[in-house]
């Protein structure tokens, strides 16, 4: 027997994108908040049905971009005008037009890296194990089945009531999964 502390959540299986979309709406309408979908392909608008708010990734990316701009400007100013001033073809040691391409490149580089690795971090990736893998038919998530999970951290979560609820909205193979 498992203790309550080990329960990760309840997972239900659905047959079609339309079914999981409706189920996601019904689940969030019922007041659940720790709800997620696991599907073979992206389903348009599912994040609205799941009531997942806008991603915070954009703020990380703008931070990366501003860091890139600042780093590039400081680097070129310090190298060209402070540490080793050198006059090239009559330009000032620090001449702003010459710094723009590198500033732009470093902004793009750090923004892009932040976007990719920020996405990994927010998704807690890489991760080789996930409790949902314990579901008996989860292998079909890359083929033709759509899974909806309600996690135990949800304040409204109750192992039997939540499972019954997912069954009542058409979920099949509703299983309680341990971490």
């Amino acid at each position, binding site marked *: 027997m498992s203790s309550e502390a080990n329960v990760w959540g309840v997972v239900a299986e659905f047959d079609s994108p339309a079914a999981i979309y409706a189920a996601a709406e019904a689940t969030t309408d019922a007041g659940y908040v720790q709800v997620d979908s696991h599907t073979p392909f*992206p389903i*348009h*608008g599912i994040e609205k049905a799941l009531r997942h708010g806008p991603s915070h990734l954009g703020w990380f990316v703008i931070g990366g971009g501003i860091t890139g701009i600042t780093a590039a400007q400081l680097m070129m100013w310090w190298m060209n005008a402070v540490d080793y001033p050198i006059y090239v*073809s*009559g330009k000032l040691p620090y001449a702003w*037009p010459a710094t*723009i*391409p590198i500033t732009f490149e470093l902004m793009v580089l750090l923004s892009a890296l932040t976007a990719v690795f920020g996405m990994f971090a927010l998704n807690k990736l890489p991760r080789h194990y996930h409790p949902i893998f314990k579901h008996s038919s989860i292998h079909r998530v890359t083929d033709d089945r759509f899974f909806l999970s309600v996690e135990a951290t949800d304040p409204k979560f109750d192992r039997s009531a939540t499972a019954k609820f997912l069954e009542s909205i058409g979920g099949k193979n509703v299983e309680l999964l341990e971490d």
Partner: protein
Amino acid sequence: MTALTAPTVDQVAPGVVTRVRPGELVGTQKGILGVSAVALVASIVPAFLGEDDHARHRVMFSYLTAYMFALSVALGALFFVMIQHITRAGWSVVVRRIAENMAGTLFPWMAILFAPVALWYHDLWHHWIDAQITDPTAADYDSVIAGKSGYLNVPFFFVRAVLYFVIWAGLARYFRGASLAQDQDGDPQRSLKMARMAAPGLLLFGLTTTFAAFDWIMSLDPHWFSTMFGVIYFAGGVLGVMATMGLTALYLAKKGYLGDVINTEHYHDIGKLMFAFMVFWAYTSFSQFMLIWYANLPEETIWFAHRSEGTWNAMFVTLCVGHFLVPFGFLMSRHIKRNTKTLAFAAVFMLVMHWCDMAYQILPNIDHHGFHLTWTDITAVVGVFGLFVAMSLKNIIATPLIPERDPRLAESLHFHNV
């Protein structure tokens, strides 16, 4: 076996009003037409009056600035239509008819509006037109311009102008005509044919727009050259049309048309393209500037030297800040692009900045020591751009407001940004 046809608009979007109700918008259209006609007279007539050659030339330059501004928007509309076809875009179907109707003004209206410029060619492009300048025995012989006379000569100049308008007219008429014909028969083959035609169409568009910018703006200063020049003109034009298209859609929505059809998702995409072409303009403009600044060759730097005199330097800073830095921060957020009020504000602001860019490129050839706004600058832009808007609106009133039987209409109606 019956041929495959696209569903009718009643099947895809029941209850949507796709035509302007009889008598509506006509008053506004006539009003804009009237104002622009008066403004046109006020900006053309002074070029023929008075003894002061400089004042007369200044009037012509006002008109050229306004003309190149409005032309870039019309050309941008043509580009928008073709790029949607070549990419087989679904989202844009509901706004494409607006662009088709704007591009429809390229002929005859933009060609007619070119007439004053053609009439004043000797005054506007006198730097390379002066007869003596290519004669080696003459006192004011200019070997650089003589070397370019194979391209820069009056007959070829006008042959090219005719060629541009023939190509633009042909493309605009073809894409608008085929789309209107599809409204009738719903034949999906027309969409495929338009996608195929868009490829050579875009090639011709790219070449004609680039050379038109060379001919009508760059050759005002015939010693100077920049291969980037045509691209900057093109980028500004597409920026201009995204702004104008967004404002037109908002105007139609305010009058009770397409309010539910062209929704936040479409405005969001118009805003994204506005942002993209604003950045593209900055990218190309800066590329032109930096290469010239870095190489520091006198025959190239002279163009920016002229534009650093007096208040032209302030215009340079205005463009850096107003045409790039401020809108870059402002239009970055999706909330700004999805709010019609802020989007409309950005659209108007970008149109003003696009005019400033045209002024920066054209007017230093006559205002040598700084920018002096004259009242013909205002009347010319009201006249030329006003006529463009009035004739676009006339086309809009005359046709269905959306491509009624485009096979991708349903996709466009249900479009969502992820």
